[in-house]
């Protein structure tokens, strides 16, 4: 269906007389009819460019040097422009905003059909069908801007779907969506493949999603395809993928950890596989002995709300910072109403100690951004009070608050404007009125800290996405704010850039900065945040230590959140003596290997039991002394 042969493409130079920018350097690809192919690669390796060549936009809309061959559904893109290709290839861009340009959902879908010159009766039929497939039938007269993130993406799919293409090319269709939106979009794509036999080519960063949905994966690196195969095969190459800056499924990472430290040869990658592989190694345990008092925490979560509100630090959660218990932020009865009368926050009460690391999660539109904008005065409470570092924000300007609260916006391009990286970082310091010497010192320090020393004189706008993100973080950090707010900082970042960013943020937290992180990525929450605030419809659904939140199945379900795979696996393995509240691969491994040691010790103490083979003896096998507390490292 799709044949790409030795494709080279270089963008025309940015400045007259400059050098062309080579992006694709010999791509070979074949996609079968009805296949669901995932394309993975870190940012800037040429994934989007490859998508654009499949639809004929390259080389027709933007010249540049094009060598090699792209044939889709028998049409060579060198002979057919994007207008003609659009009958065969539906291209869905990453940014929904720039591809929904009509006033209603119906007109949006009709646009492509009108371009093809179809009679109105057929258009009507196809619009009804396309909207039905993406489950937007009830919203025909809506303005596209009124739709949620997931709905916008599904509408973007419907617009090209109605043109009945044989191939659907999707550029990061779920990036930036909340968990519910992601699932809606992915299930629509899968249904198209299954029921309509549409061939799918999807660019995606999330290894878990690729594993769950795709038939085949290709990995792109530096303009070439470097690895291909089934998601299982490809995604278990943990070391190579990490070298390319890519994420691997969490349980694959766990298998890799076991293999490296214990010399095992596990191949599991899904929860079921991991369960059957790991459960076989441990005896099933029953807690015959009363639990150690320290362990009663989990079973006594009588009312979820109370349990969440009472903060007891997890007993082996490493205390990363000496926590100063004076609150950095106090929010009292905060409500906020937008001009159109919509209440975005209703009666929020919150206190965050200095030096804490709080994650704010919840569906899009649940009020996360509205809440944090109150911390630096970008929004003012309709009712209630916000106190930052002991002072009411009502009496302070945004400029004054900028010294205390640093705010990293979601899209780095919304703040980058300066001609050089150095100037970009110095901008905030100048605004705060520091003397030149101080500005220079802090800027140099910030550039060094975030590894941007070599780029000081480069225009930030020409840097790659990951580096642009670094520049904006350095610019905020240079102002030395006590509190740092990060609004979905990792959306669109690849695994390596995400790690770098989060490590830097953790370092700042260790130095005592209070961190507030808005994110949809539960793996990040589990690994880095110490407390979690779950918002739902402008209210607090839950607030408490991270470890406890991931035990609250009801709360998670209400907020459409899924615990990270490792947490789910740990819960499932509770009958084998695990406490079931592991948050990271490392934690799980430590607990599991402690259990292994314990089991070994017991066996060596009572050899007569381990020799027995009868069923009765099996069930009697010495779990009585086992209490999860004994496992604390």
């Amino acid at each position, binding site marked *: 269906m799709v044949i790409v042969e030795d494709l080279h493409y270089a963008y025309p130079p940015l400045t007259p007389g400059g050098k062309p920018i080579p992006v694709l350097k010999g791509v070979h690809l074949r996609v079968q009819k009805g296949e669901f192919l995932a394309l993975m690669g870190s940012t800037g390796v040429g994934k989007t460019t490859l998508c654009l060549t499949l639809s004929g936009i390259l080389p027709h809309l933007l010249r540049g040097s094009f060598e090699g061959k792209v044939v889709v559904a028998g049409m060579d893109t060198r002979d057919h422009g994007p207008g003609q290709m659009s009958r065969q290839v539906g291209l869905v861009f990453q940014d929904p*905003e*720039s591809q929904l340009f009509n006033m209603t959902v119906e007109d949006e879908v009709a646009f492509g059909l009108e371009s093809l010159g*179809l009679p109105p009766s057929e258009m*009507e039929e196809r619009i009804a069908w396309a909207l039905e497939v993406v489950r937007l039938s009830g919203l025909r007269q809506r303005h596209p801007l009124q739709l949620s993130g997931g709905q916008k993406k599904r509408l973007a799919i419907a617009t090209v779907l109605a043109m009945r293409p044989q191939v659907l090319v999707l550029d990061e269709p779920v990036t930036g969506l909340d968990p519910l939106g992601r699932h809606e979009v992915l299930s629509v794509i899968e249904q198209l493949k299954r029921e309509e036999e549409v061939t799918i080519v999807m660019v995606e960063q999330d290894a878990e999603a690729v594993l769950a949905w795709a038939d085949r994966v290709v990995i792109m690196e530096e303009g070439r395809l470097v690895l291909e195969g089934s998601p299982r095969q490809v995604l278990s190459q943990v070391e190579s993928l990490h070298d390319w800056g890519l994420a691997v499924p969490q349980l694959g990472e766990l298998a890799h950890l076991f293999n490296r430290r214990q010399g095992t040869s596990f191949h599991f990658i899904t929860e079921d596989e991991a369960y059957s592989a790991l459960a076989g190694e441990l005896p099933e345990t029953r807690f015959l002995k009363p639990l150690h008092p320290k362990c009663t925490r989990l079973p006594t979560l009588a009312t979820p709300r109370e349990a969440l509100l009472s903060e007891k630090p997890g007993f082996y959660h490493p205390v990363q910072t000496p926590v100063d218990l004076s609150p950095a932020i106090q929010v009292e009865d905060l409500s906020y109403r937008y001009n159109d009368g919509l209440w975005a926050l209703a009666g929020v009460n919150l206190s965050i100690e200095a030096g804490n690391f709080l994650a704010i999660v919840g569906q899009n539109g649940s009020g996360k951004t509205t809440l944090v904008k109150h911390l*630096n005065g970008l929004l003012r409470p309709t009712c209630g009070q916000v106190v930052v570092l002991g002072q009411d924000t009502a009496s302070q300007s945004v400029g004054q608050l900028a010294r205390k609260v640093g705010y990293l916006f979601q899209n780095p*391009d919304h703040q980058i*404007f300066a001609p050089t990286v150095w100037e970009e970082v110095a901008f905030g310091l100048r605004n705060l009125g520091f003397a030149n010497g101080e500005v220079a010192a802090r800027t140099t320090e910030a550039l060094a800290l975030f590894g941007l020393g070599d780029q000081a004189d480069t225009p930030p706008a020409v840097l790659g996405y990951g580096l642009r993100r670094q520049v904006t973080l350095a*610019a*905020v950090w240079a102002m030395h704010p006590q509190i740092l707010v990060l609004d979905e900082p990792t959306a669109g970042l690849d695994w390596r850039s995400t790690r770098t960013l989060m490590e830097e943020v953790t370092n700042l937290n260790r130095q005592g900065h209070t961190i507030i992180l808005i994110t949809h990525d539960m793996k990040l929450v589990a690994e880095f945040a110490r407390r979690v605030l779950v918002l739902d419809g402008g209210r607090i659904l839950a607030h408490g230590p991270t470890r406890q939140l991931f035990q609250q199945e009801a709360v998670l379900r209400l907020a459409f959140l899924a615990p990270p795979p490792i947490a789910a696996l740990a819960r499932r393995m509770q009958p084998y003596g695990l406490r079931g509240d592991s948050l990271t691969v490392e934690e799980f491994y430590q607990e599991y290997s402690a259990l292994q040691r314990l089991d070994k010790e017991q066996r060596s103490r009572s050899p007569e039991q381990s020799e027995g083979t009868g069923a009765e003896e099996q069930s009697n096998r010495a779990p009585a002394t086992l209490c999860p507390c004994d496992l604390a490292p």
Partner: protein
Amino acid sequence: MSFAFDLYIDRPSWLHRLDPRTKLAFVAFSSILLLSYSHPFVSATFLLGIHGILWSGKVPASRLRWAWQRMWPITLLILLLWPIFYPQGDEVLWQVWRVRITTQGLLQGLSTALRINALAFVFLVLLFSTDQARLVRGLVKLGLPYEWGLTLAIALRYLPTLYGIYTTVSEAQQARGWVVGEGSFVQRIKSYLPILVAVIVTALRLADNLSMALSARGFQSGARRTYLRDLELSPADKVCLPLLAVSLIVFLIFRFRHGLGA
């Protein structure tokens, strides 16, 4: 968040169902009429009539109040300043130094204020009852090239988006201690650079993506364009249009043959 700079209010009414071309004809008819008749009585009657049309077209009173709230400052200004700066006639009511207030000046001021209000409401009849897509379709149907119509529609569609980008960018810079500049005009313009540069770069990127999205949807694919909802004149339009034409002729004859309503 407001999602469109749009005055349109969706209501099931005869006014909303009228073809946009008929409403455009009504705008033309009213403008000619209001520009040729200057008597305050004519403008007042007309203004009243338009309110009748808006009322029967189910435009909510809150919208009318909104419109008047925006119109009254300018109305007041005209009523105050017109008699002062254009004192006509000899019938002096009041005089201080060289400022004269005459009866005719007052009447002229009233007449101008009424005409401007009437004209504004004529356009509001169109904008309250016609969504932007239909309006653009009407213009294309009247002979505007499709590409122009599309450009106009896209410009209208992206106004709120650009405004949203502007808001976000200015918030992002404020969070870094940026404040709206003070001082001379040049200084103030300069202080807006951090916002303007980021907005323009983002807008250019948006425009670039948009042009790709258009071609990915078969725009200019060579086929002759068809329309999902082609505009067709309804029986109501077929009554309204000749009525408008005939009354325009009658009113113009009264005005210029018989000198009425000058």
